[in-house]
């Protein structure tokens, strides 16, 4: 099948199967996203992050945890051999940043996987049922919203010991309430719609309606919000690392690397700057992608 006919098949107004209809819809969304150049830059950064994380062992030229000769190879400036220089333990900073992408990606993915479903479930349930269910769930949401992330992370660290896993849990627990709020607001407008009344008249149960009819309509705005929050999540994780509450040495977490380099920022600027640039680029990438997704997925936009 040539490229032209594949495109026609995808854009057909007479899809022949469920799969063709779904793929066609996805292709239309993708075409719209592709037209947005900044979003494609953001997507490129995110894909690059994933590729680097996946092939970190192949890309990194040195061991990220064990440095070279402590007498001769400490705090070397960027050179052809060490692209981003070396730190105070004589470790290659480029290799550490490459391996650090795994930690960053893990934080982002786990927070998204934990927080998004919780937020969606709580928000759509509260919005759909209303009344007492709504009041109880939204007050619980308010309670979680009142926890400052860093303080909760401190509590977790005190209870479970410091580490990146506990930081992830703390971030996830404090980041779902905005999604619940958003999903609830969307649900309140959706539940009045005739198509919800129609499926109720077909005898569908609440679970089927919420999962099959309300969630798909809330999902796009929540996805956009999560993508835009990714930058904040990365920064929070880096901030926890900087405070020594997140990733523990010698893990190559970007925030912790900045904290280590802070001591000799004046004389050996590259030690703190390189991971800082990495955090900056990845955060920007997620923000650009989120902006582009909002333009494409927002159900209120023209379609």
């Amino acid at each position, binding site marked *: 099948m040539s490229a032209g006919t594949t495109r026609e098949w995808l854009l057909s*107004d*007479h*899809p*022949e*199967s*469920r799969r*063709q*209809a779904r793929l066609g*819809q996805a292709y239309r969304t993708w075409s719209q996203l592709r037209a947005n150049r900044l979003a494609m830059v953001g997507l490129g950064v995110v894909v690059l992050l994933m590729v680097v994380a996946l092939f970190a062992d192949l890309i990194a030229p040195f061991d990220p945890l064990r440095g070279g000769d402590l007498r001769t190879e400490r705090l070397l400036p960027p050179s052809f051999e060490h692209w981003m220089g070396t730190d105070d333990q004589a470790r290659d900073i480029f290799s550490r940043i490459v391996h650090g992408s795994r930690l960053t990606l893990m934080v982002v993915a786990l927070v998204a996987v934990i927080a998004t479903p919780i937020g969606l479930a709580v928000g759509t349930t509260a919005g759909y049922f209303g009344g007492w269910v709504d009041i109880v769930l939204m007050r619980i949401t308010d309670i979680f919203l009142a926890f400052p992330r860093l303080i909760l992370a401190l509590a977790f660290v005190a209870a479970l010991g410091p580490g990146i896993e506990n930081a992830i849990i703390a971030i996830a627990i404090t980041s779902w309430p905005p999604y619940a709020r958003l999903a609830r607001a969307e649900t309140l407008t959706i539940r009045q*719609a*005739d*198509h919800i*009344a*129609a*499926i*109720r*008249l*077909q*005898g*569908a149960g609440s679970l*089927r309606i919420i999962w*099959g*009819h309300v969630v*798909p*309509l809330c999902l796009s705005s929540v996805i956009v919000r999560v993508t835009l929050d990714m930058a904040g999540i990365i920064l929070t994780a880096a901030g926890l690392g900087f405070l020594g509450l997140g990733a523990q040495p010698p893990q190559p977490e970007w925030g912790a690397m900045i904290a280590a380099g802070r001591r000799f920022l004046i004389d050996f600027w590259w030690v703190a700057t390189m991971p800082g640039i990495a955090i900056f680029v990845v955060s920007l990438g997620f923000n650009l992608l989120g902006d582009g997704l909002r333009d494409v997925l927002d*159900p209120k936009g023209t*379609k």
Partner: protein
Amino acid sequence: MSTPPGTPIEVDGLSVTFGSGAGALRAVRRVGFVLNRGESFGIVGESGSGKSTVLRAICGLAPVSAGQIRIDGAPVRTPRDAAFYRRVQMVFQDPYASLHPRHTVDRVLSEPLAIHGFGDVEARIEQALADVGLGHGFRFRFPHQLSGGQRQRVAIARALILEPSILLLDEPTSALDASIQAEVLNLLDALRRRRDLTYLLVSHDLAVVAHMCERLIVMRNGETVEELSRADLRARRARQDYTRDLLTASRGFVREPA
């Protein structure tokens, strides 16, 4: 299809009140009517007369504050049970709002079958589409790939796929333009005769009701003004002033002879 016993719909002293206390809105007050099997019954009235609320109360979307609703001779249960939904289905006014924007026609039609555990899904969907005059090419389209008339046909197919004996029609053509209106009305008429359905049609359009219904009631401010037959309507035999006004209004603007 076996014919269930009793009258299909019997509404007696139905009242619907939204809210309570000083802000209470009495949308429907002591409305009653009886439908015969295979009949098409109309409810006519201006906007806000409570005619759509009567339909919504019958299928459980609006709270019944007083009175009784019987379907096939038995009082309805609140919340409505699965047997009710297989007997009574509804077509909504706005086909742009009554279809889920992210679901294909196929999904729209297969979901009720899945809920009620019908077998033979493929054949039923193809048949339902054919019945409303849509070909196979429409099966995997999304609502935004359909015109208003096609959407309303899908909505009718969805209502009929559970093989109900009673169809509640809430202004089924008022969101469509005139040429499509006639098509959809003729389709509904043909389906009723073919399947021996009972229709309860709500409309503000006297012409639509005169075309579709054997009998009708006129509603105003939540109350029944009077009950007419199609012959009464055609001969403009109205007993109440309000109905006469409606009849005059439906004729449109007529220039007074000078």
